[in-house]
Structure formats: C-alpha cells, structure tokens
C-alpha cells in the first residue's frame, strides 16, 4: 500500500516561526498589533541586516524583503539560520528586475548589468540567504502562478517530512511595475516566511499545521481576507487569514486551490502554552 502521510493527515508540522513584511507592517509584532486594531508607525524599508553590507548593496529590494522575513521567522523559532532548508515561491518573481532587463534589451542590450542579470534568477533570494547564513541545505525556488503560496507551503512541508529537517518557506510578490499593471494585479508588495519543523522539536511553536491534499473538481478562488483589503490582488495574501489566526491564537482551516482538481486543506491549531502576542523576537 502506498504511504499517504499528507493524504491521511498522519503528519503534522509545527509552525515554529513567522516573518511578515509589507509597507504597512515591518514585523510580526506590528502585524499582530494591526490585527488587534492598533495603529503602528511604519515607514522603514526591509533592513535585511543578515546580509553582509557588501552583498546587501547588490541585493534588490525583492531579495531584501525575503531575507528580512526569513530572518524574523528563524529568530522567532530560535533556530540557527544555517540549519534550515528553504523553499521560495512567487508567481512573477522580481518584477522590477524583469522590467529593467526587458527595457534594457529593447533599448540598449549591451548595457545589461551583470549584477542585475545574476540577481534575476528566481532562486536569487535562496542564493543570498545561503550566502548570508552559510546554509548548505537544499534550496528550492518554485512558482505556481496564483497558487504559488500554497504550492510552496506544500513543497516545504513535504521536504520537512521527507528529509526530517526544518524548512523555511518564503513567498512574496512585488508591486507590479507600470508595464505589468495590465496583467498582474499586485498593488501592495507582501512577503511572508513560515518556519516548519517536526513536531516536538520546537519548544514554543505558534501552533500546529496539518496539511492534506484533496482531489476536488469544483474550482474555487483564492481565499481573500476582508480585514486587509488593500492586499487583494497580491497572491501572497491568500495566507493572511492563517497568519491572523496565528496572531490571535485561534483555530483556522482553509482549502487552497492548487490545480484544476486539487486543493490543499490546511488546518492550524494554536499552541495554548503561550499566547502569541507576548512572543518577542530575541535580539
């Protein structure tokens, strides 16, 4: 008989840490405050201090967004960032670099910047991450258009279970540039990282995540959160309701479409040992 862990909901994973960044909130604490209805002062760009200064200057905003949330998730989960495998997911990737490259190629192709070219690979974020942290673990970079967050989460969960290592899943979308506006609805960039670990490894997880792949021919749209409507159109936002539940310490379940006839059923159960709002990032 085939083993069917995810199908039978045998395996759960701990959500050991979360990182989140947008132009409205720079951290999990600020996100949690907004969920509670408080206002936050937020103007800063992602710092991405994990990247050494020389490399940081070369890194694009897209890379810095990812490194920022990945760093936050590891610090919340109290894991050594060099000990995690990574899965990165995005539909369009670094749209600013794509726009730059295609504009340069249309006008003056020999002017192409070599740094921007090597930064244009979809695995740029995982590359910068491994260089900054010294992580030699597998690093994947995937895309599934609007299903990118759910597929990256599934890929990360499978990797964590199969290889028995902590996996940092990061997904993000940038703001569409002017030329991409007609085809790409993202108006507000949003970056999220989720640190998945085998259960009972992490001392204080946010909660437990149980995933199951289901076959379902009914097509269903992406979940959208009515509480943060400005992110409608940003595919990453399909995960916001799960993070709101994690911030509030409440149960959550959702079915994310991942193909014409498959859905990822995700269930989050918060840890009751510790209230998430009191968690602080170790400095």
């Amino acid at each position, binding site marked *: 008989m085939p083993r069917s862990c*995810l199908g039978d909901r045998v395996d759960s994973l701990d959500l050991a840490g979360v990182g989140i960044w947008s132009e409205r909130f720079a951290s999990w604490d600020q996100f949690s405050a907004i969920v509670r209805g408080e206002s936050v002062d937020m103007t800063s760009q992602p710092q991405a201090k994990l990247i050494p200064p020389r490399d940081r200057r070369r890194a694009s905003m897209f890379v810095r967004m990812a490194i920022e949330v990945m760093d936050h998730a590891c610090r919340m989960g109290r894991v050594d960032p060099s000990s995690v495998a990574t899965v990165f997911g995005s539909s369009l990737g670094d749209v600013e670099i794509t*726009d730059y490259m295609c504009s340069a190629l249309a006008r003056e192709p020999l002017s192409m910047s070599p740094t921007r070219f*090597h930064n244009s690979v979809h695995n740029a974020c995982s590359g910068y991450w491994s260089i900054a942290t010294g992580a030699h673990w597998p690093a994947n970079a*995937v895309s599934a258009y609007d299903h990118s967050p759910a597929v990256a989460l599934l890929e990360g969960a499978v990797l964590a279970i199969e290889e028995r290592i902590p996996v940092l899943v990061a997904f993000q979308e940038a703001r569409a540039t002017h*030329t991409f*506006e007609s*085809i790409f609805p993202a108006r507000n960039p949003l970056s999220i990282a989720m640190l998945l670990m085998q259960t009972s490894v992490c001392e204080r997880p946010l909660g437990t995540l149980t995933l199951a792949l289901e076959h379902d021919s009914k097509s269903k749209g992406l979940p959208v959160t009515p509480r943060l409507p400005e992110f409608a159109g940003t595919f990453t936002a399909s995960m916001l309701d799960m993070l709101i539940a994690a911030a509030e310490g409440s149960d959550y379940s959702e079915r994310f479409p991942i193909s014409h006839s498959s859905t990822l059923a995700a269930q989050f159960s918060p840890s009751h040992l510790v209230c998430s709002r009191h968690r602080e990032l170790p400095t």
Partner: protein
Amino acid sequence: MNPLEIGAYTCTSAAGIGLAAMKRSIAARESGLRPNDLAVCGLDTWIGRVDGIEKVEIPANASHLLSRNNQLAWLGLQQDGMLDSIERLKRTVSVERIGVIMGTSTSSIGRTEEAFANLLDDEQMAPEFRQPHVHTLHSPGIFVAAVTGLAGPSMTISTACSSSAKVFASASRWIGQGLVDAVLVGGVDSLCLSTLYGFNSLELISANPCRPFDRRRDGINVGEACGYCIVARRGTLPDARMLLLGYGESSDAHHMAHPHPDGLGALLAIDRALERAQLSASDIDYVNLHGTATPANDSIENRVLARRFDSRTKASSTKGWTGHTLGAAGILESIVTLEAMRTGDMPGTLNLEEPDPDAEFPIEQANLAMDIRHAITNSFGFGGNNATLVLGRSRG
C-alpha cells in the same frame, strides 16, 4: 530512498528533435551548435538552436499561452510517442494522481522581451501580449498541464541551471509522501535575449563552439532544449527499464555567480545523492558532467571528480553537442545518460581536443561502448544551487 520507476522519456535540443536524431548526432560526432543567426541578436557567439520552433502551432486550448518557450515545449512533447505514453499512463493512474513538475530558468521571458519591444505609447503592453499565464515563471507548468490534461498538483521549479534536475527530487518526495502516484517531470528553456546578453555581460559566452574541459575553453554557448520523463512509484509502469535511485541537493553558500572554489556544494550534492541511493562512488560507471566550458566550472568540477572517483569511472560533458541549455540541462542530460545506459553507447566530450594539463581527472574525449549499470548526472546553477541524480537499471 525507494527507487522510482522511469518510464517513457524524450528530449529535443540542437543535437536533434527526438531521441533518434540526438543519438545519430552523438554517434556521428556532429554538433548541433551554429554561429549565432538570431535576427534580433548581434552577439558574436555560437548557439544551440532548435530549427523550426517559430512555426510550431500550439493546440487551440492553449492558444492563449503562445510563446517560443511553450512552442518548444509542445514540439518536444510530440516526439517519441510521449503523448501516447501519457495517455496510457492515464488508463492505469487517475489524472488527479499524476503531477506535473517542470523546470526552467527563464520560462517565457522571450515573450516578455517581445512585449517590451512593442509597448504602446503609454508604456503598457499591447493587447496581444497581455498574457498573465505566460509572463510568469509557471508558464511551462501551466502549458504542460493544459495540453496533457494531467490534473494533479502542478509546479514549476526555477533554480537557474539546476532547475530540471531538481524536478526529479521533488517528484520523488511527492510520490514518497503519497501526494501522487506518478509525475510527468520536464524541463524547457528557449533562446532569448535575457540569457544571451546576460551571460555576455558576465563575459561567460564564447565566440567559438564551446570546448568543455579543453585547455582553450573560453565560455558557454547558450542552447535551447526540452525534455520529459514519466516517473512513478515502483510497480506502476510495467515496461519501466530505468530507475531513479537517488538525488542530492545542496547550496554552495559562496557567491551568486561563481561556483565554490573547492566545489563544496558539488561534493555535497554528489555525496547526498550516493547516500540516498545507498551506493559508493566506486559503483558509478559514468558521470555526465555539468561541464559548461567556462574556465571556472570545468576546473572545479574536475577537481571534484578527482576527490570522489577513480579512473574506472568514466566522465564526459555533452554540451559540445547541445550548448548549455540552462534550466533544461538537468533533464536533457539525464535523458542522454539514460539512453547511454540503455544502449551501452556512452557519449564522449565533443570539441575536447587538448585536455587541460591541470586536469586531475581524465575526461573522456571519444564515445565509448560500455556497460553502464549506475550513472550520475550533475547540474549546478547560479545562486550556488546544485543537484546530482543517480540513475540505474531495473532488473527483469
């Protein structure tokens, strides 16, 4: 790991459209490389171009997905009875239990380049280029799922030049976790200005036919290719003669565009792949090398070979036939290796005439007839992203 069955496979590159044409090129030592003749690109280099892609008509249900990359994907899918093999698979495994995992470095960016060359006055895309499912990294996954009717999870991996080697690793995990019973894995990358001018900006392209491991090697020739392979849980494919025995993935953690000087990530990928296959280096008869013909890659990969293998293991790079097909290289070279194992005809290294005197490990120049029981294939990408696969033959 539990080995995966490898069923039908096919590949298309400058060395030939379909397996038979490629095998003829390899046997005749005829390169598919040619001086750059792309009308839109004036660079002085050689390229691995597949003839006739522009004329390929993609199926009506996928007409909104038009791009050179998807035309190549469709051309490749029609070779070697691949579509029939997929239909046969659907009779034993339900379509929801068959996944699609494609690898690509640049997806349909050639179409995005065209859109930018034809912008309207307000710098918006002209209506014919407003194709949301094309200007995404997932374009090949969307296209292949649409034209095959496979309905399981579908994903596109894009980790530069290791992309379509990693499709095997993810497929193995999906099957191991019971998400699906079989996966159509594939890879496709097509010639575009982004990679030609990009590698030119890094001074990595050669004005000559590429010469892997040669003393005079001076860079890559960018090529285009696609390949597909059905992989499945043991016992699913009655005619499967080949197996995926192991895979190893690693990160260099060194530099975005230069390999680790000691080949640290490459060694980790090889060691993890061998460990997963429960084999030692001495069990490996043949290594299909990444062998891009850049000075750095080839000298580092050569040292890596010398640290793990003795000279009973034969090693070659086939990029002298195809060019460096980037995100398609992993699957193309896996299929080259599978064919060498099936037929006993091992390709040598085309254009290797004067071996590098600093080489610590001998690289095969000539094609050889040899029995290959176990083989590995290496794929290394920007960002220090590495993948190695271990392939074997099934008994009976």
